[in-house]
């Protein structure tokens, strides 16, 4: 396989499930290298788990296998899914097919790049703070962050159990819907997996869309604002109050840091030098968060969810905003030599994604434009819990009336 983007970590000699019947029969997929298959290696983008052989198969892979989807291999990712850019000092940075000097976004970096380059029709990613949506936006593909508990996480690497979700990246909302239809639903092996009935994700429905245009005009870079507001117009969006993105993001960081650092405590004590510097510093910060601060963030979560649904969504189905308020940054700007502006830039990249994980609601990212440098711009649609069907209907409606999702990289 010709992969100049370093998207693949492993390519199967023969795709798995060839000739198998099912609703996804013949659909070529590959997945972030953190979904386990019994007897196969899952490196999780790390040095620590390099060569680790999984003892179980992820529920999502079992369901895709049963649906006849081809599996071509495993895909690059940020180390332990703990980074928003796609840099990886152990396995090499993933490169954006639109321009290799720019980030793919992370942590599902290989998933975004492989779909953008049309090496696969779709890929699974995980999303704890934006890890499906940021690569989807930066690579110009469609990506779905599912409701917390909608898709089983059994057999997938954990980062932050209160926030972790699994979802597809594909070339269209239609294909995301086809994949979600297969992987969604109760699984007793994931203790937080919901018994909420699985919807019909391919059905059409009218959706009412709202947006906070003044916020977008004030806080998004002009090219991003113009593309997103054009999409809002196409979808007939009316005005809504903007959520308190920064407070919700801060709570997300508190929860994510606390849980990720607890998850990694043994390795952080025994072999801290085997983490990259960037991941190690993120993990170190988590040990300084008081338990009371962590628990207070979780105690506030329900109240913030109800406020979002009542005050922002109101009677609407979907809240529209940019996936990122900034244009896609370069790898250099956001890498180890990024300089003094790097923390601010990383904050911008995740500013509009983390709040969604804190609320636990679903969100769909779709391409809605190309900036003056030729890099994609992403639109984000957010809905109430378990309203993936409404999100995907709005996404399909947008993609019927626009062609951004059909554009492919020229590099």
């Amino acid at each position, binding site marked *: 396989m010709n992969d100049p983007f370093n998207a693949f970590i492993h390519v199967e000699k023969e795709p798995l499930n060839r000739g198998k019947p099912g609703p996804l029969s013949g659909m070529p997929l590959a997945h972030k290298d953190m979904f386990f298959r019994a007897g196969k290696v899952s490196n999780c983008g790390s040095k620590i788990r390099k060569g680790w052989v999984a003892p179980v198969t992820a529920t999502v892979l079992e369901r895709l296998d049963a649906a006849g989807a081809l599996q071509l291999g495993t895909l690059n990712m940020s180390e332990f899914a703990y980074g928003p850019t796609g840099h990886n000092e152990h396995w090499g940075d993933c490169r954006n097919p639109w321009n290799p000097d720019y980030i793919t976004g992370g942590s599902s970096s290989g998933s975004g790049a492989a779909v953008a380059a049309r090496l696969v029709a779709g890929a699974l990613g995980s999303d704890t703070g934006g890890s499906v949506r940021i690569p989807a936006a930066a690579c110009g593909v469609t990506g779905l962050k599912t409701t917390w508990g909608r898709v089983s996480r059994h057999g997938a690497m954990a980062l932050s159990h*209160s926030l972790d979700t699994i979802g597809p990246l594909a070339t269209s909302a239609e294909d995301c819907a086809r994949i979600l239809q297969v992987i969604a639903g109760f699984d007793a092996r994931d203790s937080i997996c919901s018994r*909420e009935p699985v919807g019909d994700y391919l059905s059409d429905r009218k959706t009412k869309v709202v947006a906070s245009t003044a916020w977008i005009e004030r806080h998004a870079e002009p090219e991003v604002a113009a593309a997103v507001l054009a999409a809002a117009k196409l979808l007939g969006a009316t005005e809504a109050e903007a959520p*308190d993105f*920064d*407070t919700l993001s*801060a*709570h997300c*960081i*508190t929860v994510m840091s606390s849980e990720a650092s607890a998850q990694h*405590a043994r390795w*952080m*004590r025994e072999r*801290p030098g085997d983490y990259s*510097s960037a991941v*190690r*510093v993120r993990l*170190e*910060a988590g*040990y*300084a*968060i*008081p338990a009371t*601060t962590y*628990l*207070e963030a*979780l*105690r*506030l*979560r*329900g*109240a*913030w*969810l*109800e*406020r979002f*649904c009542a005050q922002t969504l109101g009677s609407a189905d979907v809240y529209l905003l940019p996936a990122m308020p900034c244009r896609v940054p370069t790898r250099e700007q956001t890498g180890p030599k990024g300089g003094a502006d790097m923390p601010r830039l990383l904050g911008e990249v995740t500013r509009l994604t983390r709040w969604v994980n804190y609320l*636990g609601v679903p969100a769909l990212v779709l391409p809605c434009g190309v900036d003056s440098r030729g890099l994609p711009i992403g639109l984000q649609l957010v809905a*109430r*819990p*378990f*309203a993936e069907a409404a999100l995907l209907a709005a996404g399909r409606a947008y993609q019927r009336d626009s062609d951004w999702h059909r554009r492919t990289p020229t590099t």
Partner: protein
Amino acid sequence: MNSWNIEAIEAILSSQGIRLAPGRAAKIAAALNAGAVADPLRAVLELEADPTSYLLAMERCK
């Protein structure tokens, strides 16, 4: 709000058996201080609200 300093960061991580990379404590203290937020909902949070209340809110918001 918390006001972290280098000594506090070093002590709390050391007590958990975590060795800090050189020069890291100052970075972490700055990041934690910058991340502290004044959440308006803290003032109205019921005593009975606990982390599992979120699951009930999800049901109500579907």
